[in-house]
């Protein structure tokens, strides 16, 4: 199987997730899009790993997963906290940090 | 080899850090102890200095960042040693003179320099710590023999000074501190570009190195040399400060405490003129010669402009600040006249300017503290109430106007006469400055000290100089007098380095007497 196809697939997923981050307001969906980006890059890493015949790519993907897990835990906790105080799950509502 | 210079620079910095742990009077005592030990060390270093040897002494060198050729390199030459001594001497003086300054404002107490109800932002320990930090950075800058290292300290010294102005100043201190920092940083960034450029040129000629000794061996093309010179010179002219980059100085010293103003005008500003000799002349001799007419005209403008502004000043601190602009004009004039006498005189002038500014600022500060106002028109007849204080103010004023017998005269004379031997016209125009100096110094003294004491003065000037105030001022006055009549110890330190710089790097020898046979 041609690795190019996987890379293109990874790029497609990444770009879709990117678009999601930019157009969606629901903080959970934005967050899921971020996870999707991580997954897309994982796919690329695994592909590279196979391409170059080295397991380091898979290790990288593994670490990405670990980090993603940690990130999700903290991120969701933050979301919950914000929701508690602001009663909103829209990222547009959390816009105090501006000029 | 024993790292004398590192220890010399580190001592005050350690002292500054120690301020984290002590407060109040203990902080002042600890700070004073550190500054005195530094002074003793500086004197020891001065005694180990050998005036006969060329090049840097007590040198230390270690590679710091290999990729760009930066070194941790310290060394001492005559010019650096002079300024090291000045710095080490002024710091304890400032600490003693400002003993009660940082304590004064308890919340709501209207005791700030301009009489408004401004309180200091932090306590005495912060003040002492910042003064010591300024001292330490200045010492490192004066001893750095690596351009990159020098640049580091040239910039970082802005920060303790910024907090000294912004934390302990008058009502408009925030504005003044901001202006100070922005000017300094602007100059710093221009210099950074030149420093990077210099590094690139150095890398093109082999392994990159910022060591002064390596950089002086570079053969720069005319254009490159001029551009780099301009980059460095702008930074130094801002720090010095020369017209038209001067406007931060009057504002900054106006808003500073007297101690802060001494560290600012007496120590930190010397970095600019010091660097002109050390870096502009040594690294870019041809460009320096190329720029001489412009620099000298600017220097003369500074002399006269600063003096005129001082005459027109209504604020004591501001007036002294303007006199500094005028004096820095003399220093730059001397440096760029490229005669041994003028450049030695300029270096000596740096020392003397530090001393006379200190005397003036401190004496004026003692008056301001008593009166609670910096406004000249608020004084009058001080001499009747506190003769010693007024006498020392007069002493400072006379030192500022370079009265013969004061050390400042020696240097001013050397600058003027040395300049005359190469550029008579410039020297004659600059001499007008001495008449204007008499005007601003004596008008200031007349308006504040003489006449019938005003009601406010009689009421507030009840005690003459206290013991600590005397302890701070009298040594300064003594040094000014002794050097005025016997400048040899300092001149013999300065002269070999300066003539070395001029002959080795700039490649100019002093003009011979014009009516032959007359000379010895």
């Amino acid at each position, binding site marked *: *199987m041609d690795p190019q196809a996987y890379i293109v697939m990874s790029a497609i997923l990444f770009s879709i997730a990117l678009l999601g981050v930019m157009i969606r307001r629901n903080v959970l969906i934005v967050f899921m899009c971020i996870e999707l980006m991580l997954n897309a890059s994982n796919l690329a890493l695994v592909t590279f790993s196979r391409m170059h*015949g080295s397991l380091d790519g*898979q*290790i990288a993907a*593994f670490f990405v997963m*670990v980090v993603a*897990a940690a990130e999700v835990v903290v991120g969701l906790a933050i979301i919950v906290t914000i*929701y508690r105080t602001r009663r909103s799950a829209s990222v547009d509502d959390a816009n105090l940090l501006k000029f | 080899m024993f790292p004398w210079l590192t220890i010399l620079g580190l001592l005050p910095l350690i002292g500054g850090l120690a301020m984290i742990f002590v407060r109040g009077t203990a902080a002042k005592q600890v700070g004073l102890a550190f500054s005195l030990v530094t002074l003793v060390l500086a004197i020891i270093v001065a005694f180990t200095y050998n005036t006969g040897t060329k090049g840097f002494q007590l040198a230390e060198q270690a590679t710091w960042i290999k990729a760009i050729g930066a070194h941790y390199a310290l060394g001492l030459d005559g010019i650096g040693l002079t300024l090291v001594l000045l710095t080490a001497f002024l710091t304890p003086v400032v600490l003693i003179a400002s003993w009660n300054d940082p304590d004064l404002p308890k919340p709501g107490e209207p005791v700030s320099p301009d009489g408004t109800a401004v309180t200091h932002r932090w306590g005495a320990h912060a003040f002492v710590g910042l003064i010591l930090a300024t001292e330490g950075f200045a010492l490192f800058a004066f001893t750095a023999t690596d351009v990159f290292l020098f640049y580091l300290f040239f910039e970082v010294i802005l920060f303790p000074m910024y907090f000294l102005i912004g934390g302990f100043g008058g009502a408009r201190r925030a504005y003044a501190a901001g202006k100070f920092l922005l000017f300094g940083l602007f100059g710093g960034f221009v210099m950074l570009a030149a420093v990077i450029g210099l590094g690139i040129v150095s890398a093109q000629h082999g392994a990159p190195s910022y060591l002064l000794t390596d950089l002086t061996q570079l053969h720069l093309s005319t254009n490159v040399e001029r551009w780099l010179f301009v980059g460095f010179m702008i930074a130094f002219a801002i720090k010095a400060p020369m017209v038209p980059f001067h406007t931060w100085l009057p504002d900054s010293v106006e808003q500073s405490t007297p101690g802060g103003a001494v560290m600012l005008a007496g120590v930190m500003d010397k970095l600019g003129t010091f660097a002109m000799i050390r870096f502009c002349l040594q690294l870019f001799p041809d460009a320096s010669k190329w720029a001489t007419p412009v620099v000298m005209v600017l220097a003369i403008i500074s002399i006269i402009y600063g003096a005129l502004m001082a005459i027109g000043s209504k604020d004591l601190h501001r007036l002294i600040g303007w006199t500094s602009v005028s004096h820095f004009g003399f220093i730059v004039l001397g440096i760029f006249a490229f005669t041994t006498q003028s450049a030695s005189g300029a270096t000596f002038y740096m020392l003397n300017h530090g001393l006379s500014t200190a005397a003036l600022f401190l004496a004026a500060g003692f008056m301001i503290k008593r009166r609670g106002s910096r406004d000249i028109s608020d004084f009058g007849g001080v001499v009747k109430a506190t003769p010693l204080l007024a006498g020392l103010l007069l002493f400072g004023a006379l030192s500022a106007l370079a009265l013969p017998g004061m050390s400042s005269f020696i240097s001013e004379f050397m600058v003027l006469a040395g300049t005359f031997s190469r550029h008579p016209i410039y020297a004659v125009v600059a001499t007008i400055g001495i008449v204007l100096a008499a005007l601003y110094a004596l008008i200031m003294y007349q308006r504040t000290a003489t006449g019938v004491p005003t009601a406010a003065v009689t009421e507030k000037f009840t005690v003459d100089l206290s013991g600590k105030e005397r302890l701070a001022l009298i040594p300064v006055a003594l040094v000014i007098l002794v050097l005025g009549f016997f400048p040899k110890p300092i001149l013999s330190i300065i002269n070999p380095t300066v003539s070395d710089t001029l002959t080795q790097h700039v490649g100019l020898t002093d003009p011979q007497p014009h009516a032959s046979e007359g000379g010895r």
Partner: protein
Amino acid sequence: MIVPLVTGASFAFWMLMPVMILGALGTILARKPVHSALSLAAVMVSLAVQYAAQQAPFLFAVQIIVYTGAILMLFLFVMMIVGVDTSESLVETIKGQRVLAILAALGFFILLIFAVGNALVGRPTGLAQANNANGGNVQGLAALIFGRYVVAFEATSALLITAALGAMVLAHRERTRKKKTQAELVTERLRKYAETGAHPGALPPPGVYARHNAVDTPALLANGEIAEVSVSSTLRQRGSVQNPADLIAPTKQTVQAIAPDRAENPATAVASYVPHPATPARGIQPELEPGESEEEN
């Protein structure tokens, strides 16, 4: 060696590619977060298959266990707290954001294709050798993790602990007031009753019926109304509360069935289930229309 026309890997890829793209689009286009999450789950499982197809069995398992199993479930839990009433309108509020976002994403996609896609030239080396070196993929990874990457691995443990602690700290609500005693609670409740007439007792439990006994089933009051407060407000807002009419329908049928007996035996007649004219304002009016009951079955 002759390459077979269609391998298992390419079959899996081409089969799952539309699923993944649709899933990804579903993730970003669904109105409700739950649907997004489910779409994402589909993508992740499909990705796991791709890992398997690319000689990464360990990651295949981990992908399913960690991502689909743990992370997505966490999302769903949080969604229960947060996402109930967050079905957002898809109308864009920031001017020009959508167009620019699409342009940027497209540009980025092209850039990725050009930049990364060109990095792969030639045939893949394959992992057979690397996997077999230590007797398998998992063993190979283990050798790397506990060998070359042991420091990073240890660091991740610190990261995970920190994250766990951080989550606890964030989720923990600091008590700003003294905890109320039971006596105080009662006093307060009764004062409220005196002032506003709020019911001081426990709320009624959901209804329990022969055919409905879930939490979304409101209880019926004695007069045939439903007790609104017996159902969680979350469910109410979501609109998944049982229609009261349906609940009443069996009773109605029963009543109709025994109507003849009632006529003969007026003494045993029950009170009318028609709501009392003085219905409390907060009650939900059951709509009792004859035609409705027929439609239910």
